[in-house]
């Protein structure tokens, strides 16, 4: 099997399926196991929020993986990972609108403008939406590589936003949010250090690769 075939026929479907495992798991818990607990709306909300944030962080692991492994293959999966982050964020918000607030738009609007953690969640989602809409290859051409790349750099803001959104709703126990935050901080620090150490190499890589790396 040629490398290209392996990526298209095997690796991509496998990663696609893996990204669906959380959804399958929560559906299984809801329908078959029935262990969503006394407050299923909250359980589902947190589960989906967690996976949106987590997949966003995983998406940001692609570039370091490329740098460290020297292989550009992981870049081929980045768009899919990012879209799955968007997918889980959309479900998280759908759960909030449908099950939690029951389409009470007045309350939803009040939450968005009054509750800082929801405001940040909303801004984060708007970024993810913009990135999802502009994720097809054709959009790179339409926007122009440079503009597209600049737009897609806001994924950092979205990732930071998702962790902040989480941290800001916590009452006392920061362990799990902090762990995610630490991983994200590590990824950001890695990028800063890399830029500082090898500014010209980072430039070169970018110019040589058809797909932008830091996106």
């Amino acid at each position, binding site marked *: 099997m040629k490398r290209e075939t392996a990526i298209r026929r095997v690796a991509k479907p496998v990663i696609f399926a893996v990204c669906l495992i959380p959804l399958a798991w929560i559906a299984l818990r809801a329908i078959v196991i029935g262990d969503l607990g*006394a407050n299923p709306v909250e359980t589902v909300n947190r589960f989906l929020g967690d996976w949106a944030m987590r997949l966003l962080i995983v998406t940001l692991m692609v570039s370091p993986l490329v740098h460290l492994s020297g292989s550009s293959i992981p870049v081929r999966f980045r768009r899919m990972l990012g879209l799955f982050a968007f997918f889980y964020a959309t479900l998280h918000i759908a759960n909030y609108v449908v099950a939690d607030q029951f389409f009470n738009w007045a309350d939803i609007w009040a939450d968005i403008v009054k509750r800082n953690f929801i405001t940040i969640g909303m801004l984060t989602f708007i970024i993810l939406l913009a990135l999802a809409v502009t994720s097809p290859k054709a959009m790179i051409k339409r926007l122009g590589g440079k503009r597209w790349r600049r737009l897609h750099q806001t994924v950092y803001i979205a990732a930071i936003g998702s962790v902040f959104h989480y941290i800001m*709703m916590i009452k006392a126990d920061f362990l799990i949010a902090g762990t995610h935050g630490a991983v994200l901080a590590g990824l950001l620090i890695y990028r800063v250090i890399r830029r500082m150490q090898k500014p010209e190499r980072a430039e070169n890589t970018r110019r040589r690769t058809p797909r932008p790396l830091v996106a």
Partner: protein
Amino acid sequence: MQIKIKKASHISEAEVTPKHLFMNRRHFIQASAAAGALGSILPPGKAAAGMKLPGITQTAYGNGLEQTKYEDVTSYNNFYEFGTGKSDPANNAQNFQTKPWQVSIEGAVAKPGVVDFDDLIKPHKLEERIYRFRCVEAWSMVVPWVGIPLADVIKRFEPTSKAKYVAFETLVDPERMPGQKRAILNWPYVEGLRMDEAMNPLALLAVGLYGEELPGQNGAPIRLVVPWKYGFKSIKSIVAIRFVEKMPPTTWNMSASSEYGFYSNVNPEVSHPRWSQAKERVIGQGYFSAKKETLKFNGYAEEVASLYSGMDLAKYY
């Protein structure tokens, strides 16, 4: 008991009627078997969740309220001593040892001392009271508690004129309460009430729910229940009751004073800084269910609003 929110001007019913007549009219105490035998029938050893409590007097408190399922009341808990996840307490408190258990009565009382759990409860009649329970996180339950009026217990120890507040303290024992191995909150968990709040007939020292001993996750073997306040005021697994002159520190207030005040009365008009308190999710209603409007003082305005007359509840949240 019919609980209606009335206009402030109507609350005077409670004020113009002599207290004992007023209460008698409402609380038709039905059966009243003595609960004296409680101590002797409790087996030694582990927390016997599921042990039936004998001689419970039924009361009219909460008649007509739809009770939250036992399973939900005992599996969805905030009890950080056993972990911060909602199901952690149910998982980690299964073998929580509550026998023997002692409560230390301290401070401005004529009769201080360390009291065995059985001796604390024995002189009183166990009552069942069905109360609304409203968590500061905007969810709610209806729980059939079994307990004794806090006021009756307080009177026994004869507080002096210096007793302006009552402070409560939870057990600290990281071996038995694994959540205490991390300093998430400032252990021990402490809470407090103003003396007149503590003496209000609604304030209950609960030792059971659904006719059975309290399970560990619900605050075995003895906890406070103040139904007009957010749930965290209802301190669990109490080991000390202290009568003091100054407002005592309280755990969540120490953790975030701008979010959790000393009073923490349920109040739909005063938001938590990070979320609205206007509505609540009723636990046990399933995935597709609208939230319910939160009632001022959790629906107990008639009984407790007078405690706060003249106070700015937005300031004293």
